[in-house]
């Protein structure tokens, strides 16, 4: 693509994207560290995650301000417009992911109250969810629609696993009432992880919109693929 004739506009768009990517990096870190704090009963690390959420929120505000001024002052069109629109949405998803990670960190602060919690399956789920967040962010960074499509498709596996954890958790709680409070915690954390996965899907959908201009939010995978390949015309 050619450079913008107006260099400063070009710089602003690049900055918008790089800020969003770094916000994504912070969020990914927050999710990873909140889970690590949880699994290691590490209160110090948990506290840090909670504190750092402020930085994520501040970036959200900053990026929102940038998109507002870009819209008002530059009147972006075509791919520039789609980048701005996608960014507005992605930033909201990232901010929610940050909150969800913070929620996990809050549980990490109290996890010592549940020494017998069954948390192995949470670790497996969180690995997958982290992979999803990472691939959604990579897709955004590199305008990679195939990676975005793959991320959307992979979410089905996460939902399945989340359901499995719910069932497993329920059996523990039914078998032994002492597991009820830790079971409630595991249920809440797995719910948070599953929702982070959903946000990764939203981000991927916005990547497809940004790159291709197609809204794939409410179509099935096969249709999304055909839209993206240009086999199907959006109408």
């Amino acid at each position, binding site marked *: 693509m050619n450079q913008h*004739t107006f260099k400063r506009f070009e710089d602003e768009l690049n900055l918008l994207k790089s800020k969003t990517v770094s916000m994504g990096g912070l969020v990914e870190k927050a999710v990873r560290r909140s889970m690590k704090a949880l699994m290691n009963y590490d209160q110090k690390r948990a506290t840090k995650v909670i504190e750092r959420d402020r930085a994520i929120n501040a970036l959200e505000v900053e990026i929102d301000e940038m998109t507002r001024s870009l819209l008002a002052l530059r009147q972006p069109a075509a791919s520039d*417009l789609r980048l701005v629109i996608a960014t507005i949405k992605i930033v909201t998803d990232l901010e929610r992911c940050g909150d969800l990670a913070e929620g996990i960190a809050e549980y990490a602060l109290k996890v010592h109250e549940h020494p017998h919690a069954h948390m192995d399956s949470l670790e497996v789920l969180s690995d997958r969810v982290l992979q999803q967040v990472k691939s959604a962010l990579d897709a955004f960074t590199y305008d990679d629609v195939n990676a975005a499509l793959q991320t959307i498709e992979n979410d089905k596996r996460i939902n399945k696993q989340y359901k499995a954890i719910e069932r497993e958790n329920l059996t523990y709680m039914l078998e032994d009432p002492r597991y009820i409070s830790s079971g409630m915690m595991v249920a809440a954390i797995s719910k948070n992880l599953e929702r982070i996965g959903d946000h990764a899907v939203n981000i991927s959908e916005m990547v497809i919109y940004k790159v291709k201009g197609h809204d794939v939010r409410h179509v099935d995978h096969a249709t999304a693929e055909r839209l993206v390949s240009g086999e199907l015309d959006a109408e």
Partner: protein
Amino acid sequence: MKTKKNKLTVRNLKLWYGESEALHGIDLDIVSGKVTSLIGPSGCGKSTFLRCFNRMNDRIPNCRVEGEVLLEGHDIYAPDVDVVQLRSHVGMVFQKPNPFPKSIYENIAYAPRIHGMVDDGDDMDELVETALKRASIWDEVKDKLQQPGTALSGGQQQRLCIARTIAVQPDVILMDEPCSALDPIATAKIEELMDELKEDYTIVIVTHNMQQAARASDYTAYFYLGDLIEYGETQKVFTTPRDQRTEDYITGRFG
């Protein structure tokens, strides 16, 4: 989907100024009752193309046209076409407001009288009033119809010229950068007017103002170096253009 009717159909239109080919075979349909904007960098042939619709190029020496321009299916370049008649069907508004050096009333009445549409008197008064009202300038001039049209402000003059154009009840109104000499308020009035007029007229506008094309037109055609690069619904062209050259132009990446 609503069926689209084409007011104008252009097929393989080529145009030469002397030896130099300015339009390289354009195919385009202008949809009836809509505003179509022609955009593109300076010298790409927008005005040349626009002038083909009412044979304004005929006046230019050494200018030669090949291909077809059909107005409701009739070839406007056919030998038996009366060009004066054609121009009453396809009116034009220019970049610089160009009222006649006559009264406001006469500016409107002049052409209908020549075309023998109505006689002077009550009928003409009515026609003048209707045209001025249609062009949203009646309230501003109704008390000074005998004053010269040239004494109006630029924006008022431009609306007077639009009134003059619609007074002969054309099918199509061509506008070549009609707002480039106007302030944002006068511009907004013209855009508003286009929106109202398209109920009865088909409008084709050349504009350098991308926001204007985006705001005011239903369809957009992007020209580059005498070729039509992309044509489609304005909303599509401005959010997801198909061609990289269109993308570069509307996002301000002039290579």
